[in-house]
């Protein structure tokens, strides 16, 4: 197994190289950092040349600019932002905790609610409850998250306040993240939106998975042995049904690091998604590459972890 892990890690390095290279080129050709200064009055041609030189943009894009960045990245230095001149690593460290709080909380609710809804829908197949869950899932799945988010703000933050009811914050107020009560209040709406969207897909997936398992011979055998429904469901069916669900969650976890751009934007959440977007728009590729390197490294790493975890969960799988 160790040989497999080492082989996968070597492959991962190659994949990361390709990802960073493609990202670098895409960022470079989609936005020019010098565009910020195009209409700046009083700036001379000499000023622009000096600025291009100080940012290293007068060097050939490939290989010079890319390999300079890569060389620093391999030493753990993600460089400086073109605009803030702050170390990219520091900028990521400042935003990552807030993203993990938002996404982590949402993920816990998504998993928990999906499990319950998927299970109920599967057990009560074609019942009114199943149809209701299915309908709501489709509504949630097909709804754009910005629509839900803006709607929630309008109702629960703006109108509730105007009506004199207890209300939730829009996210645009000044609050102290170190205060757990304030943190909880500010998490309600963005987490609700993320859960509303993502639970739909997860619960449908789990419903199908449970229904498939419930039709298998070993479940029928368990029932024939006279085991209770509860025992059949929780001890026999569910354990197998959630295996693919666990795989999906495992692959989703690294994406938590990248944040949720739309949700973070609507609720003014200072997370990684907004950091990425704000700097991508300006062509600040050190920041863009730093965020993507972190996310893609996590994806690659978690893919390996999930593969290895398979061998633990299912002894029939041999990685060698």
């Amino acid at each position: 197994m160790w040989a497999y892990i080492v082989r996968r890690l070597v492959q991962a390095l190659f994949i990361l190289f390709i990802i960073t290279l493609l990202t670098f080129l895409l960022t470079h050709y989609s936005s020019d950092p010098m565009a910020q200064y195009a209409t700046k009055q009083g700036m001379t041609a000499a000023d622009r040349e000096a600025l291009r030189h100080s940012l290293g943009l007068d060097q050939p894009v490939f290989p010079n600019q890319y390999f300079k960045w890569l060389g620093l990245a391999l030493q753990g230095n993600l460089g400086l932002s073109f605009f803030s001149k702050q170390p990219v690593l520091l900028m990521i460290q400042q935003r990552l905790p807030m993203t993990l709080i938002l996404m982590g909380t949402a993920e816990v609710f998504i998993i928990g609610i999906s499990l319950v809804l998927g299970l109920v829908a599967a057990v009560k197949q074609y019942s009114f409850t199943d149809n209701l869950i299915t309908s709501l899932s489709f509504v949630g799945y097909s709804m754009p998250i910005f629509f839900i988010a803006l709607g929630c703000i309008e109702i629960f933050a703006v109108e509730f306040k105007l009506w004199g009811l207890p209300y939730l914050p829009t996210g645009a107020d000044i609050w102290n993240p170190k205060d757990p009560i304030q943190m909880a209040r500010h998490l309600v709406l963005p987490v609700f939106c993320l859960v509303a969207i993502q639970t739909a897909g997860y619960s449908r997936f789990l419903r199908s998975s449970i229904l498939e398992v419930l039709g298998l011979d070993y479940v029928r055998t368990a029932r024939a042995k006279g085991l209770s429904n509860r025992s059949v469901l929780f001890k026999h069916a569910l354990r197998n049904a959630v295996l693919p669900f666990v795989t999906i969650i495992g692959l989703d976890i690294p994406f938590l690091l990248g944040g949720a751009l739309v949700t973070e934007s609507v609720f003014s959440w200072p997370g990684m998604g907004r950091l990425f977007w704000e700097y991508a728009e300006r062509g600040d590729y050190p920041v863009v590459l730093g965020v993507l390197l972190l996310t893609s490294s996590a994806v690659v790493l978690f893919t390996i972890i999930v593969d290895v975890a398979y061998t633990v969960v299912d002894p029939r799988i041999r990685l060698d």
Partner: protein
Amino acid sequence: MNRKLYALLAVLVLASMVLAACGPSTPAETAAPPATAASSSSSAACAPTDPNFNPAAADVGTKVITIAYEQEPDNLTGEYSNMSFAVWIDQIIGGGLGKWNDKNEFIPELATEIPSADNGGVSADGLTITWHLKPCIFWSDGQPITSKDIAFTWKAQMDPGNAPISRSGWDKIASIDTPDDQTAVIHFSALYPPWPTLFTNGPNNGGQLLPAHLLEGKTGLEKDPEIHQPTVSAGPFAIKEWVPGDHLTLVANPNYYEGHPKLDAIQIKFVPDPEAGLAALKAGDVDLMVNLAESDIESVKALEPNGIHLRVDGTPDFEHLFFNLGTTAGVTLPDGTVVGKSDVDGFCPFKDVNVRKAIMLGIDRLSFIKNYLKEDEKAFIATLWPNQTYTNTSLTPYPYDPDQANKLLDAAGYPVGADGIRAGTCDGKPVKFSLGIETTTAQRRVDNVLAIQADLKKIGIEIKPNHIPAGTFFGSYTEGADMPTGKFDMAIYTTGFYPDPDSSSNFDCKDVPNKDNPSGANNYHLCDPKLDAMFEQGLASVDPAARKVAYDAIQQYMYDNVLNIPLYARANVYGYNDRFVFPPSSGFSGWAWDTFNFDVK
């Protein structure tokens, strides 16, 4: 019993009144602004109000407002940032020698007066400018602000070890003498009429004074934490904290020369877009939303029942449509030299002033301003220098006259073809009036181009819109962007020539971008030696009256020759709530020029 009790209570009340009268003043009285140290001429009284002030540890207080900010600044020092959002903060925390007020007048800030020929501040040859600092003024940490800070600011700008965004103007300074702590004598190596833009804050200015006592001896200032987030301030507020991606807290600077500002603190909340900001304004989470677009005017008006007010201020910024007037041949000067070569020829018929005039007359700009922008007629402009003292007020905007436009195009030799599109020959080559308009993806520009497209179709001109993300549209020559490489027919964007009217680098022959001059800023690709000479005239004197004559002539020349089409003057649009007392804004400096007088009811 009751009578005894009442008597005891009366005695207690009387006693407490006597004690209160003998004790310290009430909180309301202590909250009144303290007398400024600067107001005293006595050297004994020349001391900062709080010599140990540390904004990071300061109390936020009770009189606080929150401002919604759509973009987070990259750093908070004007010399090192090109973001308006950064420059506004810089105006709050930074100190300049002068600033522009709500009437766009240049008034003293840290200086006692604006140098002029009359007060001896401007030498007869215009090459020496003498500034006098107010006596007894301090940085927020209690250190004195002196002429050494002025000299240091210039040296830091010119230090090759630093990377400010511009050295323009700073490089015209030969030396700065500091005969005493209050006086700085600035010697220019060449006449530099835009000298007021140096050592001053604002969107198109050189930047604030830098604290020599903290930065002297350092290089690589662009990366210095003190530049990114200054710990000292010369303005009415200082930075308490900056939580990246979330908010910025500015607290009153007790050592500001005018004393304690009316507010205790200003919170800047970073919101991702106007919608989020307006929702927060409606909910009462923020008190002021800045940098709204003209397209938001109706949205803010709709919030009036919620106690939200709209302010729309005309600005010297303008949205304009312009022609690619580039020629690959360039222009041959009398001495035989060729200047202003472009990589690509513009659309040949644009060389004819009557074609340009026809396009001007064929666009119903006023209807667009009223229908789409919901703006009033003051945005309908004739020149690229609107809403400022240099505006040539004798010019009136060209009217919408499609009949006249058709006649001009017919007379120019471009009849309407069977497909409804004009065609003909220009310089012996066939041409067809099927033209591109290139601009960004901003919604107002999508609306602009759609309206122009409909108007010009009526005079036989087909428009093919080309909307490009701003990061690419405004890209540089070396990246192959269309503006500098000249690969466009017509284009639209916003800019503004202020607080100094000089914009020669946008129009000069030597600034036409090409492979030998990739950083040239002349996106019009226009090379007209006569216009170059007129701009030189604008820079030939430091006397504002003489310059006004020169810029009036430039505007008249551009107007007569229809070198571009001013679409409308841009507006600063604000939404603010009932509790916020919002002093008048400045066209040149925006909303942040007078935060000392920001208040709450």
